């Protein structure tokens, strides 16, 4: 078999990739292109097939069918040690019996690279841990181990770097710091990073492009802003941030505007944001897009009245209201604490309003 560790360059392409375990389909006919040099996130709940996808690309799992290409090179059945792909493992998997220097040098030595010393020193300097090169992994803190795991992978200059839930073991503050640091390292070295995670906030912070996976398939792919503002499925709307989804009947569906009926209220939205072709749809609106006002005040174009505030929680940057509508559905509303928040108490009658262009409509899931 040919060693393609240095020859394969270009975009990563998955074509009709499928992996079946006994009678369970982990990855279902996945076709996907990850552009060279991008920071790409595979986002999904546990068991959605994202880790299996990663393991197939890394060569640790063999696909049932389909193919994997880097540029023009087919690597579907190439051995893991012959692929230009490196992984930053969950819990890092640093070799406990080797020093930090030898951990980072491991890949270079296996490939018989000449200037091991120089490359390792440079990479350790990049993650700012050169002074720890003679320590063993057990003597390092979690954040330091994380950075060594990244260094051990990028020192090989792979075509592709995988990050498998890389920040799961770190505390919140360190995680934030590492998110920024990883993003910086990616820009610095220019390697394609593929980040596998179930943490939507982490994916949105770091990735240029996110593919949301569910049940072995990709639900939607796009930039963080696009996925958040313009979700195409109920799963995406609920998985990235919070969404209020309300059942509605389509009234008119012609021209630039679509109008729907929600329990007697007329709600309009741009037709381009209606992802459903059915007469019954789910109308979606993000909690922070909604204005909350005491009943009877003047309202925006789209409005729903008759709500009663059942719960208020103050979370610092915003106040979160839970409003029960006449049809017994709870709707979440977030108001910025910028001084303009209305004086509303629990039990008050309120009217909710928002701009039509924030509204979206989806096929109901069943």
């Amino acid at each position: 078999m040919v060693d393609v560790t240095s020859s394969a360059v270009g975009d990563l392409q998955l074509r009709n990739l499928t992996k079946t375990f006994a009678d369970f389909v982990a990855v279902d006919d996945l076709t996907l292109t990850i552009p060279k040099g991008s920071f790409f996130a595979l986002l999904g709940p546990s068991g959605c097939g994202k880790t299996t996808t990663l393991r197939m690309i890394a060569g640790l799992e063999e696909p049932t069918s389909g193919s994997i290409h880097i540029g023009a090179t087919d690597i579907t059945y190439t051995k893991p040690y012959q692929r230009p792909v490196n992984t930053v493992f969950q819990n890092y998997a640093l070799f406990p019996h080797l020093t930090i220097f030898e951990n980072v040098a491991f890949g270079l030595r296996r490939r018989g690279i000449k200037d091991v010393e120089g490359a390792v020193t440079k990479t350790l300097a990049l993650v700012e841990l050169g002074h720890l090169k003679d320590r063993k992994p057990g003597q390092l803190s979690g954040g330091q181990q994380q950075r060594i795991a990244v260094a051990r992978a990028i020192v090989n200059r792979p075509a592709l770097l995988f990050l498998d839930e890389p920040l799961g073991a770190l505390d919140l503050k360190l995680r934030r710091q590492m998110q920024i640091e990883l993003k910086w390292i990616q820009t610095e070295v220019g390697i394609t990073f593929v980040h596998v995670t179930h943490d939507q906030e982490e994916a949105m912070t770091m990735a240029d492009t996110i593919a949301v996976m569910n049940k072995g398939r990709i639900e939607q792919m796009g930039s963080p802003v696009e996925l958040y503002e313009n979700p195409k499925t109920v799963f995406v709307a609920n998985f990235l941030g919070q969404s209020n989804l309300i059942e509605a009947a389509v009234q008119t569906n012609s021209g630039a505007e679509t109008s729907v009926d929600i329990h007697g209220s007329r709600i309009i939205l741009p037709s381009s944001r209606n992802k459903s072709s059915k007469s019954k749809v789910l109308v979606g609106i993000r909690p922070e897009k909604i204005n909350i006002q005491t009943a009877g005040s003047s309202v925006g174009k789209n409005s729903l009245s008759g709500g009663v505030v059942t719960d208020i929680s103050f979370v610092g940057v915003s106040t979160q209201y839970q409003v029960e509508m006449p049809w017994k559905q709870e709707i979440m509303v977030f108001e910025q604490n910028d001084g303009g928040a209305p004086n509303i108490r629990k039990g008050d009658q309120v009217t909710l309003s928002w701009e039509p262009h924030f509204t979206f409509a989806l096929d109901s899931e069943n």
Partner: protein
Amino acid sequence: MSRWFSRNLIRIYASLALIYLFIPVGYTMAFSFNDAGKRNINWQGFTLDNWKNPCGAPDICVALGNSLKIGFLSTLVATILGTMIAFALGRYKFRGRSSTNLLIFLPMATPEIVMGASLLAMFVNLNVNTGFWTTVIAHIMFCISFVVVTVKARVASLDPKLEEAARDLYANEYQTFRRVTFPLVLPGIAAAALLAFSLSFDDFIITNFNSGTITTFPKFVWISSIRGVPAQANVIGTAMFLIALFIVIAGQFIGSAKAKRKS
């Protein structure tokens, strides 16, 4: 007085237990300096003659040599075979894995006297003359179980992600084993080898059935005890004890030096 007693109860108990455990060892050591002649039972006076001439008693060093040879051979073979079995059981799923797991325990649970007698019956039935090699075969057999159990525990505690990481970092199957798996399992293999050697060196019952005319050190002591164990047996016993003690202390020392570097 009673408060002092209750405060130091554990210390008193521990000292008594240790004294109880070490009296036979101390006795053996002391009597290795006994100017005993043939019967090393009563204290006759201090001498260094036994230590200067440990092979002084007839055939004692032949027996010791046999024991060492049998010990090294059976340790080597049992450690290699047992390590391979441990990897197979710890790493791979195959038909008969759980029954193998159970059967591996059986030699440890079987009374030695039963095993020794059955082995002898088998050798006789196969028309094999008992001697050096039958002893080695018998020792390999009972040592393997202990090696498997010891190494398997180490293999089980090894994170498979480390091997995946090695493969991901361009190590092929052999390099992965050589650079990652083996160094990480090595302490377990070393412990298993030490255990196997001490079991083999120490064994009397199975050896007595299957060694024919060959004399091992435990067998020598047993045979000579009818007429009186020579003081040289105490010298060799003491030396073996001191070597074992040295290995343990050296191991502790290296371990704590490593731990100190960590902190």
